[in-house]
C-alpha cells in the first residue's frame, strides 16, 4: 500500500494563492494549527477560508493570508471573540460569508456527496438568506419540494444550501497510520470527515503516526473517523493542534491563547508573537511552548 507520509511543509506546499481551503476542528478545539503556522511561513495568500472558526481564522487573517472567510462563528471558546478576526473585519481587510452552523454542515455534505445542494429550513427568513454577492446576486436560493405535504398538500419551500467545494482541506487527529487512516481519541470528531470529503486535496496531520493496522490496537475502531479513502497525505505533527485543545493528548493552553489575544494590541506585539511562535519551524514552536512550561499539561 502507498505510504502517504509527508511533512507539514510538503502539505502546505500543495496550496496556491487564491484557493478555497477548509480547516477541521471547532472553535478553539483540535484545530490544524501546525498547518496554519506553516501557511504563515509560506508565500500563499488570498485564501478563502472555510471553518467552524477559531484561532485558525484569526491567525490567517492577522498574517494577511485571507481574502474571504466562510463561517458560522469565530470564537476562542474560553474567550468569546477573536480580536485578530475582529480587526480584519472591522478594518475591511477580509470579506465574510456568514452561514448558520448547520448550513456549513450541509454544504460540506453536499460537496462530499457530489450533489449541488441540500435542503433545509435553517436560514430562511434570517439575514443569512438575504446575503448578496458583490454584484448583487443572491447567494442562497429556495427550492420547492416536489412532494405535497401529507396533511396540507402544500409544496414546502426550503433553503438550498449550495455545495461547499474546497480546493484543499486540513484536519488534525490524535493518531494516524502511514496509509492515511486517522483516529480521534477525544469526545467529538466534529465535521472533519466532511471537510476531507468536500476537498480535492485532502490532508491529515496527527500527534503521532503508527504502522498500518496500529490504530485498531487501542480497541475502539469507531474512533477511526478518517479512512484512507478520504486522504491524500498524512504528516506527523506533535502539538499540531496546540494551543487549541486536543484531548486526551492535551487541553487548551489558556496561557498561550491569552498571549495570542494580547498580540492583537499592536503591530509590535503581533511581531513579537510571530517571531516567537510562527517564524521558527514546528521544532522551534515546541521548544517555545516547552519554555513556557505548559506543553502537554492540563489547560490552566
Amino acid at each position, binding site marked *: 500500500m502507498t505510504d502517504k507520509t509527508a511533512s507539514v511543509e510538503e502539505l502546505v506546499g500543495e496550496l496556491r494563492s487564491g484557493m478555497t481551503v477548509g480547516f477541521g476542528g471547532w472553535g478553539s478545539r483540535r484545530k490544524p494549527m501546525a498547518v496554519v503556522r506553516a501557511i504563515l511561513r509560506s508565500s500563499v495568500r488570498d485564501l478563502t477560508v472555510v471553518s467552524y472558526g477559531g484561532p485558525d481564522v484569526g491567525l490567517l487573517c492577522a498574517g494577511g493570508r485571507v481574502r474571504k472567510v466562510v463561517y458560522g462563528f469565530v470564537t476562542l471558546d474560553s474567550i468569546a471573540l477573536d480580536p485578530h478576526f475582529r480587526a480584519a*473585519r472591522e478594518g475591511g481587510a477580509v470579506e465574510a460569508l*456568514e452561514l*448558520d452552523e*448547520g448550513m456549513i454542515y450541509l454544504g460540506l455534505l453536499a460537496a462530499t456527496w457530489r450533489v449541488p445542494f441540500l435542503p*433545509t429550513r435553517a436560514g*430562511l*427568513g434570517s439575514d*443569512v438568506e438575504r446575503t448578496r454577492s458583490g454584484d448583487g446576486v443572491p447567494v442562497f436560493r429556495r427550492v420547492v419540494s416536489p412532494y405535497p405535504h401529507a396533511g396540507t398538500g402544500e409544496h*414546502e419551500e426550503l433553503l438550498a444550501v449550495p455545495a461547499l467545494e474546497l480546493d484543499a482541506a486540513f484536519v488534525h487527529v490524535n493518531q494516524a497510520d502511514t496509509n492515511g487512516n486517522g483516529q480521534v481519541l477525544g469526545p467529538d470528531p*466534529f465535521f472533519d470527515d466532511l471537510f476531507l470529503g468536500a476537498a480535492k486535496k485532502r490532508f491529515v496531520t496527527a500527534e503521532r503516526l503508527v504502522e498500518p493496522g496500529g490504530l485498531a490496537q487501542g480497541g475502539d475502531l469507531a474512533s477511526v473517523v478518517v479512512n484512507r479513502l478520504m486522504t491524500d497525505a498524512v504528516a506527523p505533527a506533535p502539538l499540531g493542534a496546540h494551543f487549541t485543545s486536543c484531548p486526551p493528548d492535551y487541553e487548551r493552553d489558556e496561557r498561550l491563547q491569552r498571549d495570542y489575544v494580547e498580540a492583537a494590541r499592536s503591530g509590535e506585539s503581533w511581531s513579537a508573537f510571530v517571531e516567537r511562535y510562527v517564524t521558527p519551524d514546528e521544532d522551534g514552536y515546541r521548544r517555545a511552548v516547552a519554555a513556557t512550561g505548559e506543553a502537554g499539561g492540563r489547560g490552566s
Partner: protein
Amino acid sequence: MSWSALSDAGATRAEICVAACADAFRGAGEILASPFGVIPTLGARLARLTFCPDLVLSDGEAALMADTPPIGSLPDTVLREAPMPYRRVFDVVWSGRRHVMMMATQLDRFGNQNISAIGDRERPRVQLIGVRGAPGNTLNHPTSYWVPDHSPRSFVAQVDVVCGVGYDRAAELPEAVRRFHDLRVVVTNLAVLDFDTPDGSMRLRSLHPTVSLEEVVAATGFELGVGMRPEAVPSTREPSVEELKLIREVLDPGGLRESELRR
C-alpha cells in the same frame, strides 16, 4: 445553616432570574434544553431537579448528562448517559426536540436577535461571534432569550443583523416554513417578556421584585406592550425555599450567578 429561616423574599435578583429561566422549560417534557450563560444553565438544571425531571441536558462538550451536577463541574467528573457530538445536535435541532435559550447582543420588538455584527453587515463597526445556529434554531424549535443587561443598547428598534428570526420576519414566510417557529420568553435582569400579542410584538409579562415599570420602559429602545392596565403588571415569582436551597447549596455553591449580573 438552615434556609428554612429565610423568607421567600430573601432571594437575590440573580436567583429570581434563575427561577424565571427554569419556568421557561416548564412542561417541556423529554427535550434537549440548551441554555447559554450561567443563569439559564442554572435555570435548566433547577427545572430538571424540580418540575421538569425528564429534561435532557448536555455537558457543554459532547455528551448528555445522567446527573445534574453543580455549574462549572469538569466534564470528566460528570456522569454521562449518551454521546452528543456537534453533528448529532443538528439531528436534534432539526427534529424539533429542543428548547434553546440563547443570548442576544441586540433584540428588537418582534424578537429578531443579533449576535453577528453591529453596524453595516459588510463592514461592521463591531464584529461579533457570528450567527451561530440562531437562524436554524428559530425556524425549528422553541427559542427563548436571556439578556443580562436590559438597556436601550440591547433592546433596539431594529437589529443590525437578523440572526434569530422574529415574529415579523416569520410572518413573511409561507405557513409551512414557519410552522415550527416559536419564540417563548425573554428573561432579563429587570423583567420577563413574551410575545403573547396578536402581532407577535414583545410584551411585558412580569417585573422582577423592586423593579418599576418606568425603569423597564426606559431601558427598552422600542414601545413595549404593557397591556390595558400597566399598574396590574404582575411581579416575577420568587423561588421557593426548596428552589433557593437547590440553587445555593447544590447547583451553584460558588455563587457564579451573581457575577453574571454585575458586569
